[in-house]
């Protein structure tokens, strides 16, 4: 399998007054195409900062970050926006859907930005929301909203799908449904999916596990036999 992401000693510092915090303090790793990667670690370990760097939401302070052999660490603001626009799909803990758009329109909002995107209706059907396409977010349950958000990420046909605590606001059963959708995207549709979480149970479903603590990676392993999400309990 080909490498999609190559992080080379990446650093992100935040300066607050005289204080300098290294949220990401020299991490190096590689992520293959079509892999389901889970990044775990306690709060404040630097997971979200790492996700922001991978998603082009923030600049690196140091190091190189290659995505499909292109070094995004040198990107300016505009290039980063284009990178997010074309290469990345996001799934957030609180869904972040536009309240004034229907489920379908929320997906269209992201697909209209990119030429080779997938048909929004088909993608919504594939996440099981065919009957709900004309509903507004407020008319959907949390799980349904998160499925819209996954559809929004997938429909763009990005190189990379980034998920920040995707089950954080959901109950157990709904959370599992959402995770199996993400696993399906990686294993059946060969999308590269990265999930950031503090839920250690999720590590069992991953192809690739990265554990972070204090801004550093302390474990980076591949799991040749990921468990089906249905068989994982927490």
């Amino acid at each position: 399998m080909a490498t999609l992401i190559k992080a080379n000693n990446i650093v992100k510092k935040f300066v607050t007054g005289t204080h300098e915090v290294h949220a990401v303090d020299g991490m190096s790793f590689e992520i293959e195409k079509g892999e389901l990667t889970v990044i775990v670690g306690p709060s404040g370990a630097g997971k979200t900062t790492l996700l922001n760097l991978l998603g082009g939401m923030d600049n690196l302070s140091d190091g190189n970050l290659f995505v499909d052999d292109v070094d995004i660490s040198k990107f300016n603001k505009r290039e980063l926006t284009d990178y997010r626009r074309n290469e990345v799909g996001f799934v957030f803990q609180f869904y972040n859907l536009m309240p004034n758009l229907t489920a379908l329109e929320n997906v269209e909002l992201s697909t209209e930005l990119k030429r080779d995107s997938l048909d929004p209706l088909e993608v919504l059907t594939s996440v099981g929301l065919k009957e709900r396409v004309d509903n507004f977010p407020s008319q959907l349950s949390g799980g349904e909203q998160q499925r819209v958000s996954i559809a929004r990420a997938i429909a763009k046909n990005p190189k990379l799908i980034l998920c920040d605590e995707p089950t954080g606001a959901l109950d157990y059963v709904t959370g599992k449904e959402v995770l199996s959708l993400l696993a399906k995207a990686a294993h059946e549709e060969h999308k590269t999916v990265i999930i950031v979480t503090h839920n250690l149970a999720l590590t069992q479903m991953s192809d690739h596990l990265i554990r972070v603590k204090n801004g550093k990676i302390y474990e980076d392993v591949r799991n040749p036999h990921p468990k089906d999400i249905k068989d994982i309990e927490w």
Partner: protein
Amino acid sequence: MKSFTKTILRMFKENKGRFIANFLIVFLSVAITAGFAFLVPLYEHSYLENYQNNHTADIILKDKTTNGFSRYDIEKVKEDDNVYDATTFMCADCEYEDSERGTQIYRFYIMDLKSKLNELKLESGKFPDKEYDLSKEVDVVTEVGNANLNSYDIGDKIVVDDSLLRFIQQDTMTLNVVGVVNNPLYNCVQKENATVLDKKTGEVKEDTYINAIIYLDRELFPETMDYYGTPYPVENFLLQTDMYISYKEKSSYFSSAYENEMNQKKAELLETFGGEDKIAVLTLEENISYSLFKNYNSKVRSLSFIFPFFFILVCALVNLITITRLIKEERPMIATYVSLGVSKGKIVLKYFLFTLISTLFGSVLGMALGSPILPGVVLPAYGAVFQMHPLDFKIQSPYAYIVAVLVVLTALIVTILSSTSYLKETPAALMKEKSPKPGKKIFLQRITFLWKRLPFRFKSSFRNIFRQKKNLILTSLSIIGSTLLVLIGFSLFDVSFALQEDVLFGNVASSMGVISLVIILFAIAMAIVVIYSLANMNIADRQRELATLKVLGYHDRECSFYTFREIMFISLLAVIIGIPVSTLIITFVLQYLDFGTIGDVKWYSYLGTFLIITFTTLFVNLLLFPKIKAVNMNDSLKIID
């Protein structure tokens, strides 16, 4: 309750923009209303200087028989104890061909130039003092020049033939200007109608105006004059055509009491002199300078009564928007305080203070700056038409203070009402974030064929616009208000321009142009503040949506279109509704002012209003672009709401 005091201080610190918007809108409103409210009494006082200490004639009698007034007639008038003094003189308009100036009509006064009644004020030079030798030059003084009266320097010569002074046994006479004076009855540049006869037909010529006013001193004529060899007393030649009368006890000028008193005197005098066939009685009300100023000032006064209603409304509207927004943002804090047992009164007090301080500052500053500056700015325009004197800023306008207080009071009432209604919710309900208004199908979606064709981005904008109806109504009302104000400015300008061609109004109307310009500028400033605070609120409301768009890869420019499209659309909608509504209102305003008609308003004024509001909106959007750029993706996405 130290921490509560701290939250109050922090509220001011964190809401500088809102504080400034609230302050500015009140400042502008009070500045313009106070300015106009002060303008009227200030100018009146300044203009009345022209009638001070000179015993201005309250009434002029004009003889209609060819006999003129005698000493006996003066005695008859003076039988009225209230007469301060009465004096007769000769006044005649004569037409001449001047080698340089062409056809000229001069009005001659032959009178006692030192008379204390309707005393002439010497502007420069001196009064004639040598006894007249009519075979040589005759010293005269002339009325001060202006746009419609020739201006003469001391030493200038005016050569006239004998059509006036037929008693002079020579073809021409040279008048030597020794001084320039101001007659209290001539105080504006308005053309004076002349009474000259057509030499062929013997009829009074129409549309003729005085080019110069020349005064000769009756007291300097020799006692007798020769007429074909025989000496006659000079009185026989100087027909006393006019009589000035001034009264001791009278009401103040420009009052209706004064007008009534003079009409009463007029009736009495007509009676005394045998009716309108024998005599014409002209009161000060019929004097062009006096009546024009009175008419003009009453229009500005009427205008100053219309403005406040409108401004108080806009201030209340902007304040309502500000406070609602402020409370909404501080909801969690309010909840905490309520649950900790802080009284609701104390919480209301917090927002009360915000409004009080911002509007009070605005009101006081608006009062302090508007009341001297606006009259000062408009003064040259008045000065171009009327003879004005330095303004006496000790003059007060109680009305301006009432408006200034009302603006603050209305804002405070709005604040109290909106914050108490908010606090009706239980602490538990307050603790929960108010969920954002859900998306809804809007009416437009039912027109399927249209909706389908709408570009995607527009669908979202339209839904947003109609989702928040309160917002839509407030925004539209504010913009309709600004439209009205801009169109009023333009209308006054057009009407002025139309009336300028009217002989009756002449130059006077042109100075209304300056007033209209001031109104337009204020209207634009207000539109900027109003649209800015609305657009700013819109952005604040949309932080999360904007952050989402950014994450999805929308560029800053595209994100700004997302919010600006709504503001532009509301703005367009409001201005499209606003123009016909304003036209209707202005029709009534002009009627009320008795100043032109809506038909005088040119088509390009409507277009100009439309463009000004549209460009103001665009300008505000540009102003707010940095705020869109500053929306932080990471901060906004983590928050649940």
